[in-house]
């Protein structure tokens, strides 16, 4: 893809390219070295010239079916084979299979006597023979300059070298010539004068006591190329150049969500946690609990049966395990079950590129689902800003390509949490959690925000972050008129509110009792009145009966006297007396 992009913008009369197969180098050079032409690789001692050249040959033979000839002027066949075996190159095997020919050229100046004129036709014959014997397409001359020390006549040598490069071009082989870096010029003996198609400069320099290798394409005739200096590393699988520009943004993404191990944090992230394969940045000032959150995340993942790789650049594994035990996180069983692996290394142990290489190696062998890097900032002390960004980009890309969820902690220096480097790094991250200290009321309290979470609904609320011997808990922070209330201020506010509630409850109960009392009083009044009424009613009845009786007696007396007097008037029964059942006889 990238290659096409380069090519379309280049002039139409394109150089055919010869892919090196070296990670990153082909991206920088837009497809490889100029095919059929010599390329000069120069650099100081120990910067990887021979390895680069050897890898060019080996990859050519293995990946591109282009056999190669290695003419070594410094190291013997055995030494070379042993040296590149550490990169996983089976030079001896390739020689046996006739994919590579190694010719060790050695001249001891003290053993050679000059007498009269000569040329280097012997070198041509040897090289030509080697090329023809396997049909080589690639040639490496490492390091040609040794000849300047072994042959006394420089004039002959120079004219022969000029002829040699011409001859190599005529042969149509893609050649890599290595040369020592000169003090003033690119090479000690001015070889760049003869090889002018492509010059690659390697450099091994020390920044803040940490050595990093760099590669730069100084010159590439007839082609566009990356002109920057790129860090490169020599790992288990050879050289890897880190061109940030070459990273393609085309990894697959997962819709799966994974829990963080802190339920309230999951709730803040739309209730489901992070996306699988996403990169998460966790920044915080010292002592805000970055490692604890990471350990929680690690434990949650390992408990789901996923493999977790924990890169620790500040604490030893034992220390982390012990410290996490104090908050109720038991990591040791997970380590024993092989679900959690720690990798601890001092950041200053070696350079950035070496760290990357080791991390890549660990990732490749352990195949984790989750990678935690605690903290990424110590690692960043190893290099310059641009190097770091390149490294992190590369790392994230590597992890994302493998659908590995990554959590990076980042230590901020206090003060404002959003420092510039952080902002630069954060743009690479999918999610960003911020842990912060709140100072006030003579205490420090931790709070947590979700600063960003790409592709998911997330809470904009600040949460107080509590660490106890039972683990982590997030609680709502009170937002009062004077700002955020945390810790004891939050507790005090809580108590205050509790008291108010209690008072209200008590008042309500009081009122209720009052009502009850009133009701009872009224009840009592009602029953008194009823009693009065009953008494009165009885009295009245009694009077009414008395009246009835006397009337009856009066009537019966009248009847009796009437009978006595023979009266003819009828006796009348009083109707009211009849209504009173039984009281008045009929």
């Amino acid at each position, binding site marked *: 893809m990238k290659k096409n992009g380069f090519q379309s913008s280049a002039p139409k009369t394109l150089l055919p390219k010869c892919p090196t197969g070296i990670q990153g180098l082909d991206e920088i050079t837009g497809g490889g070295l100029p095919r059929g032409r010599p390329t000069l690789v120069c650099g100081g001692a120990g910067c990887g010239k021979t390895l680069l050249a050897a890898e060019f040959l080996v990859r050519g033979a293995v990946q591109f079916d282009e056999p190669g000839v290695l003419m070594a002027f410094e190291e013997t066949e055995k030494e070379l084979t042993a040296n590149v075996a550490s990169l996983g190159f089976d030079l001896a095997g390739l020689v046996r299979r006739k994919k590579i020919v190694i010719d060790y050229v050695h001249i001891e100046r003290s*053993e050679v*006597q000059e007498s*009269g004129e000569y040329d280097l036709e*012997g070198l041509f014959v*040897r090289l030509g*023979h080697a090329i023809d014997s396997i049909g080589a397409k690639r040639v490496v001359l490492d390091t040609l300059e040794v000849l300047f020390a072994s042959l006394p006549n420089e004039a002959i040598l120079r004219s022969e070298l000029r002829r040699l490069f011409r001859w190599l071009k005529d042969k149509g082989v893609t050649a890599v010539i290595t040369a020592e870096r000169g003090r003033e010029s690119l090479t000690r003996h001015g070889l760049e004068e003869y090889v002018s198609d492509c010059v690659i400069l390697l450099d091994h320099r020390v920044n803040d006591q940490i050595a990093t290798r760099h590669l730069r394409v100084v010159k590439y005739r007839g082609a566009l190329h990356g002109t920057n200096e790129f860090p490169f590393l020599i790992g288990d699988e050879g050289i890897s150049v880190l061109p940030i520009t070459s990273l393609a943004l085309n990894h697959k993404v997962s819709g799966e969500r994974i829990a963080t191990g802190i339920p309230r944090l999951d709730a803040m992230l739309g209730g489901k946690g992070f996306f699988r394969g996403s990169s998460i940045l966790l920044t915080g000032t010292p002592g805000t609990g970055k490692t604890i959150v990471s350990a929680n995340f690690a434990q949650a993942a390992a408990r789901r049966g996923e493999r977790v790789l924990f890169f620790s650049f500040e604490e030893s594994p034992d220390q982390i395990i012990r410290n996490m035990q104090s908050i109720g996180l038991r990591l040791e069983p997970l380590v024993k079950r092989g679900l959690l692996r720690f990798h601890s290394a001092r950041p200053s142990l070696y350079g950035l590129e070496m760290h990357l290489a080791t991390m890549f190696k660990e990732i490749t062998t352990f195949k984790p689902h989750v990678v935690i890097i605690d903290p990424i900032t110590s690692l960043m002390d190893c290099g310059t800003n641009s190097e770091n960004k390149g490294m992190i980009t590369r790392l994230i890309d590597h992890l994302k390509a493998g659908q590995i969820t990554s959590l990076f902690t980042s230590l901020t220096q206090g003060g404002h949490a959003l420092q510039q480097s952080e902002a630069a790094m954060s743009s690479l991250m999918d999610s960003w959690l911020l842990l912060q200290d709140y100072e006030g009321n003579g205490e420090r309290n931790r709070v947590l925000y979700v600063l960003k979470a790409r592709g998911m609904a997330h809470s904009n609320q600040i949460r107080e972050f509590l660490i106890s011997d039972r683990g982590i808990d997030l609680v709502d922070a009170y937002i009062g008129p004077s700002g955020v209330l945390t810790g004891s201020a939050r507790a005090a506010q809580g108590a205050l509110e509790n008291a108010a509630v209690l008072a209200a409850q008590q008042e309500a109960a009081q009122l209720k009792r009052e009502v009850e009392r009133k009701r009872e009083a009224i009840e009592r009044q009602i029953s008194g009145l009823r009693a009065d009424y009953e008494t009165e009613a009885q009295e009245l009845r009694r009077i009414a009966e008395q009246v009835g009786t006397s009337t009856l007696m009066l009537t019966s007396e009248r009847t009796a006297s009437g009978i006595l007097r023979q009266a003819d008037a009828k006796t009348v029964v009083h109707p009211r007396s009849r209504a009173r059942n039984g009281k008045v006889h009929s």
Partner: protein
Amino acid sequence: MKTKTVKPRAAAKLRPLAKLWQLRLYVVDSTPKSQTALANLKQFCETHLKGIYRITVIDLLKQPQLAKGDQILAIPTVVRQLPKPVRTIIGNLSDVEHLLVGLDLRPAV
């Protein structure tokens, strides 16, 4: 003048203990250059090693694989196989002085 002073010294330093001088001359193709070298070598041997030398001419154009064994880079090259140790002289052998030193017939000045 000069040859007179050289000759007795050279004769004195000759190593008669070596019964056989085996010399290899590496050339590429039978170019005038190689012819010159061979002629120079023959003349030298006739002068200094009469009767006890044997010259083998190796044409690398025909046998390129032989170049590796004697670490041949420069052409022409003379390799003294015997007597031991092996000595190497590069050039068309026009410089007799250097050839004498190179073949250990005279110590370097």
